[in-house]
């Protein structure tokens, strides 16, 4: 999440001071992303250092206003026009856990899936109730909050759908258990022991040996 760009996009509407920016950010995101005042000020300092904002006037209460620069304005346009990149390689604990569970002999994968499904659905139920309790959005602030909740709802739904998919794939894939390979048959890799003779870096040719 780019706090920097979010604050800059708000500043693009006109000069503002630190606490005001934090309040605007909260109002527009349903207070779902905790942002403290200190973080707001340190972000403003970085934006100033990078020439994206400059210090403006100070009002009677001593609030230091910040103004966006032309470079800052371009950065906002660039940010809004660029997709959010997500990592392609899975670091998702659930995916890795089920992949392991699916291939380990003697693991009741159906039970593992169901335990997860129940938990994921309970999460989805709670989110849905939270949204329902909010009623119909009757203003932009409410709408902003609901959009964030919707995002969580769709993510949770995707997880349950994936679990359904996992279950139906497993049902059609009887011989999925994969015993742990005999250590002696494995290509020699890993850390050398103290008595290892010379460098143990394996040549690239052994990479395919597992297949």
């Amino acid at each position, binding site marked *: 999440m780019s706090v920097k760009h979010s604050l800059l996009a708000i500043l693009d509407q006109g000069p503002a001071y630190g606490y005001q920016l934090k309040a605007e950010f909260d109002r527009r995101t349903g*207070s*779902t992303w905790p942002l403290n005042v200190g973080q707001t000020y340190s972000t403003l300092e970085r934006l100033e250092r990078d020439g994206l904002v400059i210090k403006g006037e100070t009002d009677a209460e001593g609030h230091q206003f910040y103004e966006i620069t032309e470079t800052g304005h371009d950065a906002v346009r660039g940010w809004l026009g660029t997709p959010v990149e997500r990592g392609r390689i899975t670091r998702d604990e659930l995916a890795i856990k089920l992949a392991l569970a699916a291939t380990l002999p003697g693991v009741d994968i159906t039970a593992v899936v*169901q335990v997860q*499904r*129940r938990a*994921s*659905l*309970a999460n*989805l*139920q*709670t*989110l*849905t*109730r*939270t949204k*329902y*309790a*909010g009623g119909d959005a009757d203003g932009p602030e409410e709408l902003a*909050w609901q959009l964030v*909740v919707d995002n969580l*709802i*769709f993510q*949770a*739904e995707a997880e*349950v*759908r994936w679990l*359904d998919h996992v*279950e*139906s794939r497993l049902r059609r894939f009887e011989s999925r258990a994969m015993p742990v390979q005999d250590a002696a048959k494995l290509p020699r890799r890993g850390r050398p022991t103290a008595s290892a003779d010379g460098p143990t870096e394996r040549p690239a040719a052994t990479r395919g040996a597992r297949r």
Partner: protein
Amino acid sequence: MTAELLRLDGVSQHYGTGATSVTALAGVDLTVHAGELVAVMGASGSGKSTLLAAAGGLTTPTSGEVIVEGIYLSEAKPADVARLRRRTLGFVFQDFNLIPTLTARENVSLPLELDGWKARKVRTAANDALASVELTDRADHFPDDLSGGQQQRVAIARAVVGPRSLILADEPTGALDSETGDVVLRMLRGRVDSGAGGILVTHDARHAAWADRIVFLRDGRVVDESTVDPIESLLTGADDR
């Protein structure tokens, strides 16, 4: 303890006999109270729709009892079962079956008129039902002038019109986009919150999440349940706001 609206007691449903016999339900126990929406999930062929048909007295189980508002369907006279279907039960299915020569409001009014309601009461109830699916401005349109999604919502309004205490819905949001689907689920939830009971058969987790309790069927058996603690979820909700 709130009133028990529906109880399935060891309900089994077999089709055919001998080697070709198929078991659609195998000893299902399920209770729905007033103010409770129960979602039934499961893969295709797990028995979801059979369960709903049995709960609404559309089929007679091979064994076990279905009790609706204290009435044992197995012992009830056909006229009593018919009355239950007309007054107590609201069936929401995917097919529309709207009458093309009647307006949306007239389609929705039909069940109440058949039940002998007075015209003014019918109109009020039909308008309420149409409002609950956000179709007030389409009340005087004929089905041909309505989109597929609007027709489906008219059918849903007709299914729940009047004071029905037990709503049985089978994939009710089939032809609807996600926003309109939410309108229908919100309506179902609202009916349940004001005292009805409901069963929602769905394969869609996002829809099931509107329920208080989710029952999982596999091969005709209840294999698991998921509940959410209403108090806890309200507190969580308050925290998140």
